[in-house]
């Protein structure tokens, strides 16, 4: 881990990342005890709620597969509705996790240590939620495996020109790398839990997953290198995954989709929405488990700044789309954008603009930026706004494309809504299970940023 020069820090007073005069032991105790103690009542209530939403999800998927795609509101011009909106939304959510854990790691942003674990978990769960949608949205789920390049006697390969296939590779890679990265980071903590375990079963299971971690110097050396390599591997994924997802739209010829701005615009949007989701979750977890010392206001404020910056980036993208629509002189594209803002879906467009562009501007004020209730509300607005961004892109472009004769209006059905709600249920269920059974904050990394971790600490405080 990096070394903090506390001598220098004295003159350059950066407030401590971890508050409350924690020691190594107290950090271990705070974080491990959450997993080891019986969960609080609130956990059971939330878990009950979330898992019943999972039932709705399973029921909706079952009904969908039994009946057909027709149970949704999709129709002829609008072939993709909420499912793809949800897919892009969830993939986007995942991005913040990777950004926080990998990119900030490489840039040695130590404030990430308090949030990186559950940001990574969030990535994995969001990607799981995301993967449901392309899986079930196809007309014949039972042959969805045709999309994979599996050698077969017909010698048919998937179509490598299709962005949907690129999606499979991009999201597949992203999921596996994120999972490895997350798991690698977990190993020392799992070992800590193993060492504290009281029952045999617990010892065995944790022992299995901590892969014989002993905490020896050599192990730490390998571990650090592996973690760095994985961080390096994840970093380009932050840019590539959503860029590839954006090509689903950008490579098509539909006005409103056919645009070169999409890759950077999608990446910015993904980070934007991901940070908002991390905020939402962190504020709740911090409150329930009294982690105010570890996830400090400083962390939250910095994340708010990221939200504001990325919010302005998407705002720039929105306005640039309009500019290009006008500047290109392409009448179809011009129409599409005017139609977005003033057509039958104007309501969705203005929800998007307000939530993504206008509301995050409030973070210019330090008061708002550091107010927990306000930032919680704003993070939820951003989540809503980013869902609508995907809805606006997917649906409005399809609903009114080249030939006015085929224009139609998309209205969601009960099953569209239930799948979205169900996916939130799955996300929260997984998340609740995670905070119940795994250390939601990296014990090792927190220790690494404690003042005591400085090799010279005891020289000064002896």
């Amino acid at each position, binding site marked *: 881990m990096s070394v903090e020069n506390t001598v220098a820090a004295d003159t350059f007073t950066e407030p401590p990342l971890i508050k409350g005069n924690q020691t190594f032991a107290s950090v271990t105790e705070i974080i491990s005890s959450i997993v080891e103690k019986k969960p609080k009542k609130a956990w059971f209530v939330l878990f009950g709620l979330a898992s019943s939403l999972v039932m709705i999800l399973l029921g909706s998927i079952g009904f969908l597969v039994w009946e057909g795609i027709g149970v949704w509101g999709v129709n*002829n011009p609008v*072939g993709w509705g909420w499912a793809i909106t949800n897919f892009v939304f969830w993939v986007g959510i995942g991005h913040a996790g990777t950004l926080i854990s990998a990119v900030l790691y490489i840039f040695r942003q130590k404030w990430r240590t308090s949030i990186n674990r559950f940001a990574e978990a969030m990535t994995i769960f969001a990607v799981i939620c995301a993967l449901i949608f392309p899986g079930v949205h*196809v*007309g014949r789920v039972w042959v969805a495996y045709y999309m994979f390049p599996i050698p077969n006697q017909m010698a048919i390969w998937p179509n490598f020109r*299709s962005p*949907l296939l690129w999606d499979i590779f991009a999201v597949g890679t992203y999921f596996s790398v994120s999972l490895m990265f997350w798991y690698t980071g977990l190993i020392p903590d799992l070992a800590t839990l193993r060492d504290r375990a009281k029952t045999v079963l617990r010892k065995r299971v944790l022992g299995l997953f901590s892969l014989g971690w002993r905490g020896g110097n050599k192990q730490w050396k390998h571990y650090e290198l592996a973690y760095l390599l994985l961080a390096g591997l994840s970093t380009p994924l932050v840019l590539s995954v959503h860029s590839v997802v954006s090509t689903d739209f950008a490579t098509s010829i539909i006005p409103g989709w056919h645009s070169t701005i999409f890759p950077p615009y999608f990446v910015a949007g993904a980070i934007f929405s991901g940070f908002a989701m991390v905020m939402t979750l962190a504020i709740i977890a911090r409150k329930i488990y009294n982690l105010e010392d570890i996830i400090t206001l400083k962390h939250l404020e910095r994340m708010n700044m990221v939200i504001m910056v990325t919010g302005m980036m998407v705002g720039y993208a929105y306005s640039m789309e309009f500019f290009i629509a006008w500047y290109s002189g392409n009448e179809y594209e011009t129409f599409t954008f005017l139609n977005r803002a003033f057509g039958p879906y104007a309501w969705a467009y203005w929800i998007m603009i307000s939530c993504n562009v206008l509301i995050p501007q409030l973070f210019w004020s330090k008061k708002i930026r550091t107010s927990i209730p306000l930032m919680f509300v704003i993070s939820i607005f951003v989540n809503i706004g980013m869902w609508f961004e995907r809805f606006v892109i997917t649906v409005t472009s399809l609903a009114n494309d080249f030939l006015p004769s085929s224009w*139609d209006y998309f209205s969601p059905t009960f099953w569209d809504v239930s799948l979205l709600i169900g996916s939130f249920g799955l996300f929260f269920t997984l998340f609740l299970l995670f905070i119940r059974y795994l250390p939601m904050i990296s014990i090792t990394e927190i220790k690494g940023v404690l003042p005591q971790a400085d090799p010279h600490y005891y020289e000064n405080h002896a």
Partner: protein
Amino acid sequence: MKLEQKIQGKEYWRSLDQLADTSEFKEFLHREFPENASEMTNPFTRRKFLSLMGASIAFAGLAGCRRPVEKIIPYVTAPENIVPGKSLQYATTMPFGLNSYGLLVESHVGRPTKIEGNPKHPSSLGKSNRLIQAEILNLYDPDRSKMVLKNGTPATWDAFKSFWAGQAKGFEKKNGEGLVVLSRAFNAPTLYRLYEEFLKKFPKAEWVVYETVSDANIYKGMDIAFGKPLQPVYDFDKAAVVLSLDSDFLLTETDDIRATKNFAAGRKVDEDGKMNRLYVVENAYSTTGAMADHRLRMQKGRVPAFAFSLLETLKKQGLAIDSLPAPGGDYSVDSKWLTSVAKDLLKNKGRALVVAGKEQPASVHAVCAMINEALQANGNTVRYLEVKDALLPDADKLRKVMTALKNKKVKTLVMLEVNPVYDAPVDVAFSEALKNATQTIHFGMHADETAALSSWHVPAAHFLESWGDARSIDGTPSVVQPLIEPLFDGISAVQMTAVLSGEAKKSAYELVQDTWKKKLVAGSFERAWRKVLTNGVYKKDTFKAPKIRLKSGRVQAYLKQNPITIQRAALNDLEVVFTASPATLDGRYANNGWLQEMPHPVSKLTWDNPLFVSPNTAKELGVENGDLAMLTVNGARLKLPVWVLPGHADYSITLTLGYGRTASGRVGNKVGFNVSGLRTSKAPDYVTGGQLSATGETYLLANTQDHGSMEGRPLVREATLEEFKKEPHFAEEMVEHPPLKSLWEEHKYDEGYQWGMTIDLNSCTGCNACMVACQSENNIPVVGKEQVSKGREMHWIRLDRYFSGDLQDPEMVFQPVGCQHCENAPCEQVCPVAATTHDEEGLNVMTYNRCIGTRYCSNNCPYKVRRFNFFNYSNELPEIVKMAQNPDVSVRFRGVMEKCTFCTQRITRSKIDAKNQGRELKDGDVQAACQQSCPADAITFGNILDKESAVAKSKLSPRNYELLGELNLKTRNTFLAKVRNPNPELVGYQPVV
């Protein structure tokens, strides 16, 4: 988009929504999204549709190989011709009122699956219409009546025969007094012979035509003018100027196919730069109105005023024509329009034609006949033929019989393939009157509303199951040859009539032969008979033009006796017009899913019959699309949904007959509203005195096209004849775009067959024949009203309809759009599993088995012609309906994308045939189903590499353009731009209405 406006930059012709500045128009657009209308009140949901469809699999045992017992020709000569998997074609005839259509029916191992027109037949000329195409589904209608019923309980045919023998004995004594037969009008030698025998046996019996919509007014008009009910036969190909007075001769009038073909022939502008000119005066926008170069919207009741004024104006302009007594009331019409039209007609003497619609009163037809006579149309653009073997409609006689029935003077009432309980006008009170007859006998394909109240019901056979004969409108006789043994033991019309006239022993086959033995006297009868069957037509013994002259004195005398008063409808005195539905006609096609789901050509509505009203009147009445309004007329009230139709005459309301059936079967029951209850026998076509008020309720209407404006986009490209001559390549030049270059070296497609198509927008009338033909050929499922309202109709070819210009008085154009078969297909690139690919002949093909249903291809299709199986539409069909399916085309499972294939099965079949014969394919060997049916010959298809092929030549037309060509998709289907031929005097003129 028009040429002259292109020059002015982006100020295209005013599209509907450039009026959007007005709140009125915004509202109109807003209501175009019917999802916002409140809950569906129609019980006919998809779920119900499917459960009903699935409910009856009772006929699963019906095998597909029920051959007729009698000899039908190809079987007799060469039964070994039957190769499983290979279809045979038989000629037969579809009787249709006083016309008949000669057909070639495709049969797969004894199972008829597809109907085409017989090129040798004068009424079909190898083409067809939507109704002909849909007959195949009627044949396999699982709701057809399956047994003789006596008071609603099953009985036998023999029981009926012995019952009738008893009846006949009784009536013979009384010379048939008290015996009445109601039948449809027919034009059939054998039926007429039996009809005469019936009257010989029962001289005092009455046999009257009962038709809900008929040409009665036309025959009466001819009777007034010529002293004889002659049959007018129009030759539109010879006409340079046509004036239609409320005549939708391209779609709903008799002889529509020939009219369309000939009319379209007069608009092939490429050959000599000449085209005909059409003026239409009409109430509601029709497909004929859409083809018009000038259209005058006018209340139906005021069209007679136009006819009279025209006659006067022509006389004033120097035409030798006798004047007529002026009609009463205000009969002034827009004088500039009128004089310009009159001048044009006069200038084209001998090449001009005035036609009036069947809903116009007899006097208008007589006036038109006078005008035509004076314009020397007779013998040039119109022929008047003397009909024989025909039972003509006669309103007066029908009224007499109905009175007799009311007065209990009718003992036994026989109803042959009519359904008066459903569609009799309200003043007849038919269901009540029916009780006055002791015995009521109903003969029909369905145990319908009338059958339910009759003491006997006999199931009728479909024409594809029966022997018979019929004449076309010009008298050409042909034989109705069965292709299959009656599926439900139905009795043919000939057989039934024979039994009624005491000829119970002979079979229909023998009876028809008996008739034809008198015709085919030269040489061996057997050989001549076979020839008639094989050809499907007998060109001799047609109607002749009699040597009688039109007498204007008769017309004058008639008008003196029956003066016409012209009324002007107003807001609280609305005109109410009754028209036959283009889909269900008078209700007899109500149980046909293809027709129910076929969009109305103008409103694009399916599964319903709302009232049509003009935008102005709707606004004044405070109603809009999807509102339920209460219509009061003729002392009756009915709640009907409203549909605002641009171009409709003000203060006039058009109602559509043929909906609201209660006993038509699972498809047609409770679809729409039965408007017969508002109709009287005195004024069955139109009446004034209607009142309409909003009820505040709404109703879901399912249309296939929400948006009617082109938004100024160059989709249908149009110019006037003058502009076209000046700038023949106007269509291509209408769009400016950067050079279309590819980053890659593209596939050349320069060998073998390369399939391509052109669609001539100058010929297309928007009649929907191609759509139903495609549905029949390609096993396209019917999805039901709810699915259509969600935008999930499955038609592979659709007819886009756009309005342009003034909302009250717009122009209307049609554009058939199927898969454009782009060489650079955007759908192919995005499919992750390569389920849609290009073949070496330039077809964009679908591999259904490979498709996983991502719908990405559909999203990326700029024409949105791909259709997705949102549910398992085809699987839930009753077994019997599956027999109507084409075995050469895969039936698609749910979750699979489908679309137009350019009839790839037909291409393959022709290639195999050609290969077996050791030759290359010739131009014309392959016909796509849409092309084959198109009565306007608007669609050309073939090998574009063959310089001599029709399609290659067609693509050389200066009017040729690619739709959205600027996307560089290299579509194999291209359009030929529309050209209108306006009268220079009337260009830009807004007539006063």
